[in-house]
């Protein structure tokens, strides 16, 4: 996971929550599968599909020693008549104007990654031509009788839910089945924690473009307003947020401020979202408290425990978050949760404590109870706690503590 985060750094991917979520998905869809399966990336406009495609390529390059290049093609701009020759290449004389053999993008992507962007726009016929490529890694250049093999990692990118499209007959189910590894990008408004981080980054970038020196970014009030508006108006696009911040920075009259205050972004929140911070703040605050108060308390508890026991705070926080998400999955039935989690996940605090037990190094239940002041019957068996910990973090991380 750490190496994926480092790859995020190299690619300038910002947003702690986004990085963690994507790292987990890249771990299971690329690394765990050793890059053997085609990957489909789904996310609405502006959620970072291009960046994540580049991340997949970067991870495959560093982790599997692949040396080929990243080749991207926008399927939305490609008529069926050109699709095959562009992708697979052609032999001389295969069609009018084919005076010489032509290499396709797959040839260029040898040892690298081929990204098929807006794949949902391909006709059903063109989708059919991808079946053998994605399933068997074989293709036939136009006009050729010989099959060729490719080792390119193939990434299908879509801003629509392909499963849903398959349900309505607009996407081939059999093609979907051949690309089982999935990465789903959350919309911006669903990862509130990243909004301020991104906004601050965009403000600093825009200020640098304007040549402002000594500029420190947006004030807390301005950041809170942006966050409130983004969440309340369900903004999914990071690109739109960037546009809003840049508009605000470039509209600010000289001289450069130390910080950009809420008044400077107010009219842009109004024009982008119809938001009125002065009137809406109270409601945004209420939502925010409901959503994040428990997390804030958990962070304090974790900080206290980390301080007492000299355990890395980030590890504990990460663990607590993973456990909470697993608990949520169990409750919503969104994805299957291993049986070993079931008893633990029914109560987050208990699950968290089970993992903390391992981290604190308590030798037995009595020691653990002394620390957490728990009753005997509320304790999970230590073997379950270990299994949980290793399932979440793997053996390598487990050995660190």
């Amino acid at each position, binding site marked *: 996971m750490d190496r994926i985060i480092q790859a995020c750094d190299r690619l300038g991917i910002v947003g702690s929550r986004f990085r963690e979520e994507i790292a987990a998905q890249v771990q299971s869809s690329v690394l765990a599968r050793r890059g053997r399966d085609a990957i489909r990336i789904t996310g609405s406009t502006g959620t970072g599909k291009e960046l994540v495609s580049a991340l997949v390529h970067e991870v495959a390059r560093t982790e599997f020693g692949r040396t080929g290049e990243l080749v991207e093609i926008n399927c939305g701009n490609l008529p069926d008549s050109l699709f095959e020759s562009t992708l697979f290449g052609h032999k001389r004389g295969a069609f009018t104007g084919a005076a010489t053999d032509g290499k396709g993008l797959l040839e260029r992507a040898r040892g690298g990654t081929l990204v098929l962007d807006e794949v949902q726009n391909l006709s059903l016929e063109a989708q059919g031509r991808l079946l053998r490529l994605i399933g068997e890694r074989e293709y036939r250049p136009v006009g050729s009788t010989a099959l060729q093999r490719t080792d390119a990692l193939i990434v299908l990118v879509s801003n629509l839910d392909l499963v849903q499209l398959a349900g309505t007959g607009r996407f081939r189910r059999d093609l979907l089945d051949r690309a089982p590894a999935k990465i789903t990008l959350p919309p911006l408004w669903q990862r509130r924690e990243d909004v301020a981080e991104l906004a601050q980054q965009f403000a600093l970038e825009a200020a640098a473009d304007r040549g402002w020196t*000594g500029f420190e970014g947006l*004030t*807390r*009030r*301005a*950041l*809170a307003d942006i*966050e*409130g508006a983004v969440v309340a108006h369900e903004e999914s696009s990071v690109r739109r947020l960037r546009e809003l911040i840049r508009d605000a920075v470039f509209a600010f009259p000289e001289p450069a*401020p*130390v*910080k950009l*205050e*809420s008044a400077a972004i107010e009219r842009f929140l109004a024009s982008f979202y119809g938001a009125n911070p002065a009137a809406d*703040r*109270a*409601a*945004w*605050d*209420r939502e*925010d*408290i*409901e959503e*994040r*108060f428990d997390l*804030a*308390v958990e*962070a*304090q508890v974790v*900080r*206290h425990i980390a301080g007492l026991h000299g355990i890395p705070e980030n590890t504990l926080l990460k663990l607590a978050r993973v456990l909470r998400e697993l608990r949520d999955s169990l409750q919503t039935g969104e994805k299957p949760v291993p049986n070993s989690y079931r008893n633990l996940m029914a109560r987050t605090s208990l699950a968290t404590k089970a993992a903390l037990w391992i981290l604190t190094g308590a030798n037995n239940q009595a020691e653990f109870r002394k620390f957490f002041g728990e009753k005997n019957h509320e304790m999970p068996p230590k073997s379950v706690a270990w299994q949980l910990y290793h399932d979440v973090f793997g053996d390598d991380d487990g050995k660190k503590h």
Partner: protein
Amino acid sequence: MSERMLRIGSETAYDALAESLDAVVRLFSSPCTLAEVAKAQGTDDLPALERKLDQLVQNGVLRRNGERYEAAGPLLYAGRQESVIGIITRLMLPSTFRAMQQDQGFAVQVELQVAEHEQRNLRQSFLAPLTEQLNELSDEPGDEKVICTLVAMGTSDVPGPGEFQERIIETVRRAGRQRSIPASADRAFLIQADGYFTPAAKERAEALVRTMAQDLKDTYPTRPEGGKPNYTVALGFSVRNGVGGTK
């Protein structure tokens, strides 16, 4: 609030205060050099600290006399210029948790029956005198002063019965929530006050907080028969950086 009080006006100054709170608290005790302020703040990034202090100078909170910075007045009030959860996360919860640790401070909670109009007046009738008296104690000269924090929260959304610490945390949540409901916001409060105290003054400050809490209880008692509390106030007092503290 007091006329002697300096008020933070701009958002930029508010942020500068948030980012150098310990340094500013130190300066409200006595003038000192940048190096001395840096020690109080626990930083060795002098240029960054100087930038923050200069922002506060520009906003009239501090003055600079040669090498020394000093407070421009005896008291400083900063109204919230961030989200409620921001201030809860950054200030209220850490201070409340610290107050609940026996080696760093103490917390008290009282259940009251207070008429609605009096709930609205608690800032004036209870909080103002409490913070004024704490300020006087923090003015006492002496060496080896420590930064102490008072957190105070009050809400008419009284939590149900429960374990002491959980109720206090729940009170933070409910006070924060009520502050974001315009119709009843003025019946709740959520404040933090910081001061720089000698060990002796700190002990008197702790006694003051306990006494004021008891006075509040005596002034607005719950009726013995059928009198459910309609208001709760929680107070926490703690020493920053885990220094000192009495139970």
